[in-house]
Structure formats: C-alpha cells, structure tokens
C-alpha cells in the first residue's frame, strides 16, 4: 500500500470524478459531495492553510462531529504533509490543554460556536494556538477575536491562490511519502496524561487495505459516520477505509436524528462499540413492552426461533427445512421489519470492538440476520489485528489474525503483536514507547489471553489488571477484574461494574444499575422511585442485582482459572459513574484506580465486613454546576460456589 491519503483521494477524483464521496443530511436532504468536488475543496483548503503558514510535519487540531468539511480539512492538512490530530468533541476545554501544548499546535479547525468557545477559553494556557477556523457560522457573527475566521474565508483565499498557482496542489501531494506521519490519536489513558499515538500513512492504509481484503469491501458500501473521529475506530472505518475502498460516507443531520438517518441510509458496512448495540437493544425491548399482546406474543415466539436457528444460518451450518421455514416466516413477520426499523436491512458486514460484548446482546443481532462480528485491535495497532471470518463467529472470541499480523502470547500470558499497522511510537514519550514496543518490533497489547484450538483469539483481561488473591480461601488464585466486570455488565440491569480483589483475600464489586432498564423493571413491579439514587437504594433492586451476581459466580465456578474471582460482597452505587467526574474514560472504560481512591471508604467497608456505609461525593451536573450527593449504602453479600477444581495445588 505505497500511497498516501491525499493521493488516494486524487486517484478517486481522477477515476470516478462524479461518484459520491460524502453525503451529509443538511436542510432535510442528503447533499452529496462527489470525489471531484471533494478534491477541489481539499485543494482550496490546503492552499489556504499553506498561506496561513502551515508547515510540513506540523500538527493541526480537528474538533467536531462528522462533517464533510472537517474530513476535507484533514485531507488538506495531510496534503501539505501536516498531521491532523482529531480530538473528542464532547470533551471539556481543559482536556484539550495537554494535547494542544504537547503537540505544539498552532492551528485548530473546529465545527461550531461550542468548540470555538472552548478553544478561546484555552488561549492563555495554550499560547501557541494562534489560528482557529470554524465550519458553522451560527452565533459567531459578532465574535471579534484575533485569528478566528471561517472555513469559508479560508477556502476563498485558497481559491485565489490556486487560480494563480496551477499544479501547486498536485506537487504538494506528490511530495508526501507513505512513511511520513499521517495522523496522531490521543489515547485517553486510564491513568495520567493522554499519549499521542503516531501513525504513518502506511500503517493506517495498510491495515485499512487488509480489512478491505478480509471482508471483500467494494466502492458500493454505504457507511454512516456518527461516532467521534478522534476514536480510531470511526477514523479507520469512515476515513482510512473510505479512501482505500472509495465507498460513500454519510454524515447524519444531528444528534437527535441519528436513528432516522440510519433508517434512511441503511448502511451496508457498520461499526460501533458494544454500548451502541446495547442501547439499541434496550430501546427495542422498551418499545416492545408497549406493544399489544398479539405483537408481543409474535415477537417472543419468533425471537425464540431466531435464537435457535438464526446463528446456525449465519454460520453456514445445515438447518432442517422446517426450521428454515419457521425462520423464513419469522423473517417476514418480525426480523425483516425489525431490521428495517433499526436501519440494518442492508447491512452486509457489521463490526463491534473496543470492549467485550455480551453473548445475549451479540446473538440477538446475529439471530435476526445481521452479520455482526467482533474484531480485536487498538489505537496502537491501527485497529485491525484479529477479525472474525464470516461463518466462524463466536461471542467469546475475537477472531483470527489477519494478513500481515504476527501474534504470540508472552510467558506472562500477555498478547504480543507485530504488524505493519503498529504505531511509530508515542509522541514525545520514548519511555512509554519503549514500554510497549520491543526492539524487534513486537507490541505489548497489555491484554491477557490465548489462541484457542481453532486459532481464534480469546481475551481474558487487561494483563496489568490480572492480579492475584492473597490469603483467604483461594490464596494466589488468578483475579481478572475486567472479565468479571464484563460478565456482570452482560446483564441488562447492570450498566457498569468495578471489581476489586488484587492482593486481597476475596473479590468485591461496585455495581452501577442501568437506570432505563431497571427503571422499566421497577415500573412493571409497580415500584415507585424518585430518581437514580432512590432507585439504586431500593432493596428489591438490591436483590435483583444479587441474583445477577450469583449467576456470574456460578459461571465463574466452572472456569478453573477464574473460580477464585467470584464476587463475595458488592455495593450498588448511588450515582452513575461518569466521564465528567473522571470515573470513566471518554470511551466509557472504568478508571478502576480513580474509583478505588474516590470511594475508598466504600471499598474498606466491604472488606471490613460492615453492613452499610455513609458516603458523600462531589458531582458535576449537565449544566456544568457541581454539587454533591450523599447516601448511606447497604453492603450486600453474594453466595459463592465451590470451584470445580481449586487452583491451590497448581499454584
């Protein structure tokens, strides 16, 4: 894949100038940008940026929703050999401070007033940040700030420049080399400052191509891009692979219309982290609750059929004609319409990644005939490491290593990867780089796991989180918090879970209930509640959660390696863990450390064997004000089960 992003764009513009490159729903209709138009836009923006003094290798911050013009802006920066740095648009201004200073950013390209305000707020703490361009003018008409201008203006000045310098752009693009840095992604590390992951054109495009080959993607795919560009997942799917395959990327109208837009577009290639599928399923179930008894009956019946037959069909196994018939009927009455209302009628390949996905959740989508698959990868590996081939899809594995990937498991049980897609290193952070990249080019994924008999990779947990239990019944047993947490989170009622136990005698956990799901459950029990805190405190809820925990314990007991990780005691938290309070990362991963410190008293209470504990915590509200919630939380005990075989002897 010896090419660069801008070159790919130019190729498409040359080969299929009229073909649609991007579509955005603006003013009620899907407005199309053809490859030629895109190329022109990029050219003008590039010229504008060059005039503004953008240097090769310099970093440009890009913040905003998926907007064609931001895509063009990234391409423009890359055309000049500069490095776009996409940041999460929903982050607080302060979270931008480090990346901007760390990457000596002078130029920022942002979507709208909201983002502009954040940038302006940062100015005195980020002295270098001199120029800010915005896509949407609304509300900014009366702003009078040095270096603040619209992308329109930038395009205009670029136009004039181009009109005098024909061929300038092509020559700029020609200068770009595949091994130059193409983009930098800041990983919201679970601890400390974020790290800038540096990728070259080659590393990104090579993986994109590998993925394309693996799923035989064509230029006819339709993709809906509504997740943050700063997340490498979205970036690969709607940017790198977009340019590699030349398919159409569609940008929704706004946050509140995504479901409608999804339904209209009906993507053929779809990618989302588990929580999106989870929310979708919850919504489906809730909507079905209100349906008439007949519909509900039909739904229940045929979902059962689907659960039984659907996966087999997708896995290409042989199915009896009667089952086939029943499934057909179900497809006519339920699955088909359901796929249609969800917007998945045309999905050919759908991926989920980033977190483990619950088996029930996973099979639900597969059973209604959506080819949902898992993949394994991270920002550092440009996503594609392992993918599940069609017909070889299982809930508890993440697929086989694909082209160009070498994979091994270190003695410590950590998964090591070598592939063309690996990062160049962490920006200005040799130590961190050294930690993950070995001299001979192996990357420490930090995940503990193994390749199973059929060559599929199975992930247990973050390697560093895998701990040991000291003392107690199963002294020295392996403790895999994430594994336990995921198992808990697979219950619809449990939104988040945090397990403790490393260097302790037993495992205890915090539970966050899923407000929507439990709320509905409560209504059906006609249990009245005043809000989240109140609901979480209900003893009925407590026992509901206890059942879940004990089921998990049951499962764990069957897995010799993990039997010790059974949850002995737990607390149902009185507030939702929240990224704004620093308890979750922007990608909603729990920050176990942070939480452990923040709720120290609760943790102690659990291990001290107390039966309730008072706590007061500071919270940030939607509108930015902060206050505090306090409550006295009961500490609950859960039944645990004798392991099938204890590890004592093994250890």
């Amino acid at each position: 894949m010896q090419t660069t992003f801008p070159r790919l764009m130019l190729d498409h513009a040359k080969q299929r100038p009229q073909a649609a490159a991007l579509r955005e729903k603006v003013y009620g209709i899907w407005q199309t940008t053809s490859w030629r138009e895109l190329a022109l836009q990029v050219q003008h923006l590039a010229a504008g940026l060059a005039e503004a003094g953008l240097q090769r290798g310099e970093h440009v911050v890009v913040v905003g929703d998926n907007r064609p013009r931001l895509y063009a802006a990234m391409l423009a920066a890359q055309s000049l050999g500069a490095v776009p740095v996409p940041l999460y648009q929903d982050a607080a201004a302060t979270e931008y401070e480090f990346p901007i200073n760390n990457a000596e950013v002078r130029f920022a390209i942002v979507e709208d007033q909201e983002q502009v305000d954040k940038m302006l707020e940062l100015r005195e703490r980020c002295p270098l940040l001199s120029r800010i361009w915005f896509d949407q003018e609304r509300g900014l008409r009366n702003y009078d700030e040095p270096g603040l201008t619209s992308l329109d203006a930038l395009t205009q000045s670029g136009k004039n420049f181009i009109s005098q310098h024909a061929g300038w752009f092509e020559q700029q693009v020609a200068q770009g080399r595949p091994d130059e840095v193409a983009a930098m992604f800041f990983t919201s590390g679970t601890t400390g400052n974020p790290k800038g992951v540096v990728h070259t054109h080659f590393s990104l495009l090579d993986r994109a191509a590998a993925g394309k080959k693996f799923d035989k993607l064509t230029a006819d795919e339709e993709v809906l891009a509504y997740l943050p560009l700063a997340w490498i997942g979205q970036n690969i799917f709607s940017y790198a692979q977009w340019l590699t395959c030349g398919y159409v990327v569609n940008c929704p109208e706004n946050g509140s219309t995504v479901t409608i837009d999804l339904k209209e577009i009906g993507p053929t290639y779809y990618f989302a982290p588990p929580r999106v599928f989870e929310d979708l399923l919850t919504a489906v179930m809730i909507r079905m609750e209100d349906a008439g008894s007949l519909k509900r009956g039909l739904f229940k019946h045929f979902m059962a059929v689907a659960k039984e037959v659907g996966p087999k069909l997708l896995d290409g196994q042989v199915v009896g004609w009667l089952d086939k018939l029943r499934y057909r009927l179900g497809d006519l009455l339920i699955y088909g319409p359901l796929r249609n209302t969800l917007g998945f009628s045309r999905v050919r390949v759908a991926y989920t990644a980033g977190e483990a996905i619950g088996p029930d959740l996973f099979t639900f989508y597969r059973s209604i005939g959506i080819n949902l698959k898992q993949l394994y990868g991270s920002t550092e590996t440009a996503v594609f490491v392992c993918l599940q081939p069609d017909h070889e899809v299982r809930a508890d594995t993440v697929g086989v290593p694909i082209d160009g990937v070498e994979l091994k498991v270190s003695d410590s049980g950590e998964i090591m990867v070598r592939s063309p897609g690996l990062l160049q290193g962490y920006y200005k952070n040799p130590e961190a780089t050294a930690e993950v990249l070995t001299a001979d080019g192996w990357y420490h994924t930090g995940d503990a796991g193994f390749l199973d008999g059929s060559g599929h990779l199975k992930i247990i947990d973050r390697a560093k989180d895998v701990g040991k239990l000291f003392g107690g019944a199963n002294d020295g047993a392996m403790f895999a918090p994430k594994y336990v947490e995921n198992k808990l989170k697979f219950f619809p009622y449990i939104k988040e879970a945090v397990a403790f136990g490393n260097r302790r005698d037993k495992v205890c956990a915090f539970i966050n209930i899923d407000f929507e799901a439990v709320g509905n459950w409560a209504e059906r029990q006609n249990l009245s509640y005043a809000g989240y805190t109140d609901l979480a405190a209900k003893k009925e809820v407590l026992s509901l959660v206890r059942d879940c925990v004990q089921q998990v314990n049951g499962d764990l007991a069957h897995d010799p390696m993990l039997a010790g990780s059974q949850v002995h005691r737990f607390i149902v938290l009185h507030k939702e863990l929240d990224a704004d309070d620093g308890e979750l990362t922007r990608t909603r991963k729990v920050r176990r450390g942070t939480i452990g410190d923040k709720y120290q008293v609760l943790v102690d209470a659990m291990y001290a064997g107390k039966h309730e504990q008072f706590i007061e915590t500071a919270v940030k509200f939607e509108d930015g004000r902060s206050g505090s919630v306090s409550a006295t939380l009961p500490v609950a005990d859960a039944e645990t089960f004798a392991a099938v075989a204890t590890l004592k002897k093994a250890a």
Partner: protein
Amino acid sequence: MAQRKIGDVILEVKNISLRFGGVNALTDISLDVREHEVRAIIGPNGAGKSSMLNCINGVYIPQEGQITFKGKSFSHMNSRQVAEMGVARTFQNLALFKGMSVLDNIMSGRNLRMKTNIFQQAFRNPWWSAAEREEGEHREVVEKIIDFLEIQAYRKTPVGRLPYGLQKRVDLGRALAMEPSVLLLDEPMAGMNVEEKQDMSRFVLDVNDEFGTTIVLIEHDMGVVMDISDRIVVLDYGKKIGDGTPAEVRANPEVIAAYLGTSD
C-alpha cells in the same frame, strides 16, 4: 459578547386608542421601536398588551391614532399589507395550522414570496416545472429555519402531535419564514418550563443578532424580560405607565405599584 448596533426608530405608534363596544382596550398609547432592538411590552393580565400587537399588525383597527412604519404612516391597514411590509408575529395561545405538518406550517410563512400561478401548480411535476422549482427554493429557506430552531427530527410531524414547547418554536419558525424586519412575539414563553424558556430566549436573541431582526415582545416572566430586552414599555388597564431601559422600569414606582399590586 454580541455587539448589536441599535438603529433609528423603525416603528412608531402614536396616540392609539381601541375600544370594543364600551370597553376601552387601549387609551392613547404611544411608543416607538428602534431598528435591531429588543423591545418588551409588559403589564398585568388584561393590560391590553395583545390588543397592542393586534393593532400593529392589522387584526384590530384602532378607533384613533396612527402607526408609522419605516416612515410610512397609516391609520389602519389589513393584515396582508402589514405582512407585505415585513411585520411578522407569533401568537399567545398557539395559532398554528393544526392539520398541517411542521414543514407546511413554516412553508405557509413563505406564501407572500411564492409567485407561481395555480395552473403551474396544478401541472407541477419533477421534470419541468416552475412550481416544483419554486417549492424547492422555498423549502430550502424553510429548512434553514428548521435547522436554526433545531426541530429537524419533527419536520414531517403534524404540529398537533408536538409538545407545547416545540409548537411554540414552530410558531416562531412560521414567523421567521416571512423574513420579517420586525417580529412581534406575543408571550413566546408562556406556559414553558425553565429549560424551554432558556431555549426560547436563546432563539429570540439569536434571531435578533443573526438576522438583525427588530423584536417587539410581550412577556410575563420579568426575569426573562429584564435579561433580553433593551427597552421596556409597561401597560396597565390600557394605559402606558412606564417606558425605558430595564433598570429605569425596575425603578419606576408606578410600575412597581401596578405590578406587585396585581401580579403574584
């Protein structure tokens, strides 16, 4: 941060008096509105605020007095003429076209600018048709308003099915579709919760500085009024008892008496 420049008087009302049978709705009211400003009319219930607006945009015809708009004076006009001169308004208790979708309601605000005749419309078709083209052009304007009011998710919903707060937005949208130079708002925030009120005031202010629209507004919520308006007129029992900046009005004893006296 918004730096709006207030212009000269664009609308002036001189010595208006309005009677229904024996009842005096308005007695000898005079007030002026400057270009680009946000002008509030406040007063207890039945003070004649709505009647004032109705006189301005030709729904009622005052028995005495005259209205000067952009230098043209008239003692009375019909609503159509007023609309043509660029005055739009929203209504206190929603006056949306119940049977139509959000889109059509706002589109109806464009009727003054739609020129194709009835035959062109009858023979409308996707291939060659002035009516189709015109419809498209105006649809785009309307879509911009929908976008501005952030109601994209409801464009094809019958207005009847929308919650009250959103219906108020559609009402505003219909008025905006007329691209008015003066916008009369009759209690735009009546019956809204705090959040909706915040949104609505944001929209009002945005309209004012995005399009430089002059705004005449009737509102009960003193807090909101004081926040967003440049000058305030106070009516009581059809008489004008105060006029000036929020600060001045707040200080005016007569106003305090009338207001604290009557309203809760």
